[in-house]
């Protein structure tokens, strides 16, 4: 429904984008948040665009209002919301998933912070709230996920080894429960679940992947590389947030003008959506493409294929040795071996049908841009230092 009403130009060259009104993006200085702010700004999609983060943005965008604040602090949030008066909120703020300690911080920001924002939004008349969830919340980190869709159950608590995923899932439950809540029946929410995000500004996926190239590991492959994996270019994730927000606001407009609520099979409010590049690839093919973009010339017949079992054995030994001699984190961990041999891809039919979502940046273009950017920023461990700050062709 929404996509036809809101002409969203895929490439940002603005045709006629219906205004989203005043929009607040939390975590606007983060990887995804920055891209959402940049995309909405380039599309001229908002009457007023504000960003909220703990830190200032490294590359602030002209015309965007930047606020610093703590999303777990209800009083200051209520004050800020009262000042900005947002029509819509995109909530991306979350601590990085890098460490897996069962920390209070993780719970506090992801669950309590989300609850605080929901409350502040409801009390200040926000119409639509889009939450950045994660595709990992249905994954136990071990099993294969084959063409998984939104009917899969959430995996939390003891069944979920990643505490980060548990808190993301709990927050998603809160967000979707707030949709048309009895006290605020017009407040609409939706959740976006992206899988393995990468792109410009990325710290978690491309930089460590490229380090493997500079360590000379491109001649090794663990497993038979027949496992498909979904990766998502960051602009596409930002685009999906835009679509979801537009759809929620369109639903609200529709109901405000007295028309019937959307049918169940076209509903966006109260729903979660997987978002990917719609192009699952064999795990090592993604890695090889990144390495090739950085200059690797390895041919398939030069690659040593190690079995998953062998990889696990080596990783286990390395973990023990590194632990025993306090050497820190080894080059190969059992978790990495499991991920490289795992099938993990999703069906995004729901997002295609209900949001009208189609990726706007192709996987290959995204990899080229992302690799260039990571080397330019100099965030790849082991990269030739001269590449930092150097424009690559």
């Amino acid at each position, binding site marked *: 429904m929404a996509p036809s009403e809101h002409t969203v130009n895929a490439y940002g060259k603005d045709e006629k984008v219906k205004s989203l009104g005043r929009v607040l993006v939390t975590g606007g200085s983060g990887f995804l948040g920055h891209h959402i702010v940049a995309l909405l700004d380039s599309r001229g999609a908002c009457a007023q665009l504000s960003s909220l983060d703990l830190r200032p943005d490294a590359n602030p965008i002209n015309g965007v209002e930047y606020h610093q604040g703590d999303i777990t602090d209800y009083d200051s949030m209520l004050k800020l919301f009262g000042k900005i008066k947002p029509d819509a909120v995109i909530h991306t703020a979350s601590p990085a998933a890098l460490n897996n300690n069962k920390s209070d911080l993780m719970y506090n920001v992801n669950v309590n912070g989300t609850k605080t924002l929901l409350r502040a939004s409801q009390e200040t008349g926000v119409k639509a709230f889009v939450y950045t969830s994660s595709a990992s919340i249905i994954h136990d980190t071990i099993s294969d996920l084959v063409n998984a869709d939104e009917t899969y159950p959430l995996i939390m608590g003891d069944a979920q080894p990643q505490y980060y995923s548990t808190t993301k899932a709990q927050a998603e439950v809160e967000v979707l429960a707030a949709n048309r809540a009895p006290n605020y029946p017009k407040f609409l929410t939706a959740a976006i679940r992206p899988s393995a995000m990468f792109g410009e500004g990325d710290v978690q996926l491309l930089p460590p992947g490229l380090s493997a190239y500079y360590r000379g590991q491109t001649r090794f492959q663990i497993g038979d590389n027949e496992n498909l994996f979904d990766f998502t270019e960051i602009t596409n994730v930002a685009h999906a947030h835009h679509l979801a927000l537009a759809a929620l606001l369109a639903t609200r407009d529709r109901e405000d003008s007295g028309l019937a609520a959307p049918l169940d099979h076209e509903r966006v409010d109260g729903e979660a959506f997987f978002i990917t590049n719609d192009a699952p690839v064999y795990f090592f093919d993604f890695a090889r493409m990144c390495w090739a973009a950085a200059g690797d010339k*390895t041919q398939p017949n030069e690659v040593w294929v190690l079995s998953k079992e062998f990889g696990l054995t080596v990783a286990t030994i390395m973990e023990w040795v590194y632990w025993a001699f306090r050497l820190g984190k080894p080059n190969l961990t059992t978790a990495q071996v499991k991920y490289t041999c795992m099938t993990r891809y999703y069906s995004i039919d729901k997002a295609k049908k209900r949001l009208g979502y189609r990726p706007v940046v192709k996987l290959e273009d995204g990899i080229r841009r992302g690799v260039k950017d990571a080397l330019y920023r100099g965030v790849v461990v082991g990269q030739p230092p001269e590449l930092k700050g150097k424009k690559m062709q």
Partner: protein
Amino acid sequence: MVSATELAYYATHPTELRSIIQWKTWHNPVHERDEKKESPELKECFRQLGLTSRSFAAVIQELHPELLVPVTLFYLVLRGLDTIEDDMTIAIEEKEPLLRNFHEIIDDERWTYNGNGPHEKDRELLVKFDNITKEFVKIKEPYKVIIRDIAKRMGNGMADYAKNQDLEANGVRTIKDYELYCHYVAGLVGEGLTRLFVEAKLANPALLQRPELMESMGQFLQQTNIIRDIREDHEDKRYFWPKEVWSKYVPKFADLFLPENREKALHCQSEMILIALRRADECLFYMAGVKEQSVFNFVAIPQSMAIATLELCFQNYAMFERNIKITKGSACQLMLESTQNLQVVCDVFRRYARKIHRKNSPRDPSFLEISIACGKIERFIESIFPTQTARTLPRDANGAIARKKKEDEETKWDMIYIMIAVLAVLALISFLMIGAAYLAGARFDLAISALKKGNFFPPKNPQGVASLASQFEGVASSSLAAPNAGHSEL
């Protein structure tokens, strides 16, 4: 018939030989022609079918009786058009009206044509074309309407191409032109066949609502042939590979065949294969709409052959040097697998998609797109034959981890029980053996004393045993068991 190289090949590839034997022994046609009821003209039609087509003759003749004759005539009519179009000895002034009016010609029971050049291999088909037109008037009207319509559109398309001087001189320019050419020569065939199948109620009418599916069926086959026949077409000065693709790699088309451009030729080949491969999932989707076994076989066999041919060509430079084709053994294996059901054909597609993926090289400009195309085939198969759904997941909230923990716990206890059992059995056997030795008079005291002195190995000869015994005899008070050997020695 069988050459020495073939013999050597099958001696070293027994699984392929097995497929040939299995196909020849066990394949039963779903339907068989009833030759007694056939008119002499129809018999001649089938003879022509056998002469003009190696690959389709067999599958067509096994078709459901309702469609056997219409499809045979459809094939021969299109073959007739092809024979006119292909023959460069026919002047364009004569060729064009023939092509454009062919859909009317087929209603003329006396029409024959001997204007083909003497070297045209299918010349005889047109010389005796009245056999075909005589049969054509006999088939049901709805089938005639479909065949006429396709013949008209294809004839006009071919006439446009034949008149196109630019094409003659420069070959196909854009990918769009290339696909349009494939549409005229193959996409239309797909449409005609689909309409015949639906008319005969042997396929799901929904196939007509999704025209891109039948288009892909034809495109996939035609593009595969165009890719594989590059060498032959080049020698005949026919250029079907679009300039839009090859110009990315070489300045002149003929440069593709130069040895120094080997890698560039392979990159160009990959891109051509990629364009075809992107259609594979729609071909599988189409086959899901076929309801009758003989029709399924008819559509599935060429499709399986096509994906196997793409795999054979991929990263294979031999394609630029000579004609290549899949071996007879592989062909028989594919026919066995394509005459069962959709799931088996899906397995074939997945198998070849993975083979292509394994040969894929990151140096190739199409590397990631090929990986995505292979992934798309796998994902499509997964969507029609899912191996995992939310309902197949463990129901309990704890999910797989809890189940795994429980399993681990169970295996741990299983392990402990097995160890206890093994130890118990070992203990019992040891007890029995030692007991038996004791009863038979073994001297453990001597053995233990020797061990204490550090003699871990038994003496090698009887003398050694005796001296050992005597050595300890003094210490041990008992002389009862003093071995006689020892005394005789003293």
